[in-house]
């Protein structure tokens, strides 16, 4: 009876047999969570611009303003902006990655998180998709600062750029994983922002982004070595300084690398520390989300 009224394609409900689990399904979930992050990043141009303000202030205003003061400490031909550049690059990714992870808290407040948590996919694929999304958008944000390299006296050398992109990806992943881990526990967006603000500035200031790591008082040396950001800012700075022409002594003064009680931590180990921390925090995030409904 109903079929006689309805047009043929309306009358037949399209049969959708949802398949039972499996890897390809988890990959689809990871991919769509990742794509959503990109869509939302792209749509929010204002956020893209505002996230640039702070790094640009540090690099050009602070970097130029303090250069008269720093002139005597700097080796000839090296600008303070060049010195600050790797740290500022890290900073640009820092805020975007944490903000992206914070969107989980936002999603929880506005209900969308529930849509994800009730779906028949593993919590792991949702957390992983979210981490990939944050990694991608934070790296994209970093790429904008990377475009400004010339203004800071950093050469546009392909190997250097590729190495920096690789380090940005690693940094962004670990930061997003950190944010996701926190977001699993925090119920309100304001609280999330407050907690991250409270942590971000100390992490940034202790990472050696704004000063060389050598010759510091013991208390500060210890604190910088505890800060995980140190282990990514160090390698970023050494890759930049290795592509600049200067004396070995000047390079050693400005970019001494991360040392543990005089032992120079190899770049590989330094990056591995960051990667392992990211993986562990992502895992904690997954476990937290498995507990919650």
């Amino acid at each position, binding site marked *: 009876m*109903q079929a006689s009224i*309805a047009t043929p394609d*309306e*009358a037949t*409900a*399209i*049969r*959708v*047999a*949802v*398949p*039972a*689990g499996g890897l*390809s*399904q988890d990959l*689809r*979930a990871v*991919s*769509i969570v990742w794509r*959503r992050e990109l*869509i*939302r990043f792209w*749509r*929010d141009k204002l956020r893209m611009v505002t996230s640039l303000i702070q790094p640009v202030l540090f690099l050009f205003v602070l970097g130029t303003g303090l250069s008269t003061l720093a002139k005597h400490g700097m080796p000839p031909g090296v600008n303070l902006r060049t010195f600050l550049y790797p740290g500022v690059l890290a900073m640009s990714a820092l805020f975007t990655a944490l903000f992206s992870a914070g969107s989980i808290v936002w*999603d929880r407040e*506005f*209900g*969308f998180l*529930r*849509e*994800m948590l*009730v*779906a*028949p*996919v593993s919590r792991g694929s949702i957390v992983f998709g979210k981490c990939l999304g944050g990694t991608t958008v934070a790296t994209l944000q970093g790429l904008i600062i990377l475009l400004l390299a010339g203004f800071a006296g950093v050469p546009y050398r392909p190997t250097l750029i590729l190495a920096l992109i690789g380090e940005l990806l690693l940094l962004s992943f670990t930061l997003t994983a950190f944010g996701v881990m926190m977001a699993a526990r925090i119920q309100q967006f304001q609280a999330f922002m407050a907690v991250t603000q409270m942590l971000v500035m100390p992490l940034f200031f202790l990472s050696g982004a704004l000063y060389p790591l050598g010759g510091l008082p013991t208390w500060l040396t210890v604190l910088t070595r505890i800060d995980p950001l140190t282990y990514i800012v160090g390698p970023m700075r050494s890759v930049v300084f290795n592509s600049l022409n200067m004396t070995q002594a000047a390079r050693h003064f400005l970019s001494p690398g991360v040392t543990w009680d005089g032992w120079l931590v190899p770049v590989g180990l330094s990056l591995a520390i960051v990667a392992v921390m990211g993986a562990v925090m992502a895992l904690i995030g997954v476990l937290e989300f498995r507990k919650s*409904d």
Partner: protein
Amino acid sequence: MVPSVVESGVSSSSPESGRPTAISVRGLHKRYGSLEAVRGIDFEVAGGEIFGFLGPNGAGKSTTIKILCTLAQPTEGVALVAGYDVVKARELVRRNIGLVFQDTTLDTYLTAEQNLRFHAELYAVPKQLVEPRLRQVLEMVGLWERRTSLVSTYSGGMQRRLEIARGLLHAPKVLFLDEPTVGLDPQTRSSIWEYIMELKEREDITIFLTTHYMDEAENCNRIAIIDHGQIQAIDSPEALKASVGKDRVQIATTDDEAAIGALSAQFELDAGMHDGLVTFSVASGEEFVPRLFADLGVGIRSVSVARPSLDDVFMSYTGRTIRDTEATSGDSMRALRQRFRGR
């Protein structure tokens, strides 16, 4: 992958419809600390039924629906949805149900279409079916033309319709609607119900809903009245109203005084004046009307017989009206949030 203890797809079937049972609940309890939200409920929902849980806020409706949707674990008892145990086969239950929550769970910064695509990917709808199915569900709720608008530009009613469309996208066997029209204006509410009824015609689906609106409960094939975590009555709205017994009869007569006297003398009925009419309650009112004409002895100008309403039913099973128990603050908070979110 699937543990062997899982009860397989099709279990018992209900005798009347010959279709598999969609939901089967036995001895369900849920305790939160010392608070007992659900105190041992049993019921079955046949395939293709619209089944409603009617009760005031805090009666245990939401807890029950959460358990059935695998969002909460029962303290005691067993629940099967689409043939799968909600505790032992969580994933399989989730695959076979659609959910529309009280509060919106849409991403308002995405378009309607993007929201649905997100859902299709999470539920792994086969790739070649995503397009046609997306169009079908959007047309069903009348939002196809607006599919590329951001959800933040949608009204409350449109958002709810989109959520219903999304809940259907992966062709679930059971659709759960938790207070589907709460916070909406009466006109939007009735249009949502038109969509639900149309959906029932078109799709092979069982609908389980909770509500505290009487008129909404009228639309169900069967309803369970739930109060204090227990089912007080369960039947079709008609049967429930019949179980209350008496109908309300109102007559206009040539001499009301005499009519009241005669009703008392002839039929032992206690009548009074209401709305300018002689009014009384009697079992099976329609059958009583011919006797009334034959034996009253007073001229009758008009008669009306009214069945008891669900309000009367609720009253008779719980001893109070649903409005007495309703926490209106919940509704107004929700309306406020809706407004804050931007329409």
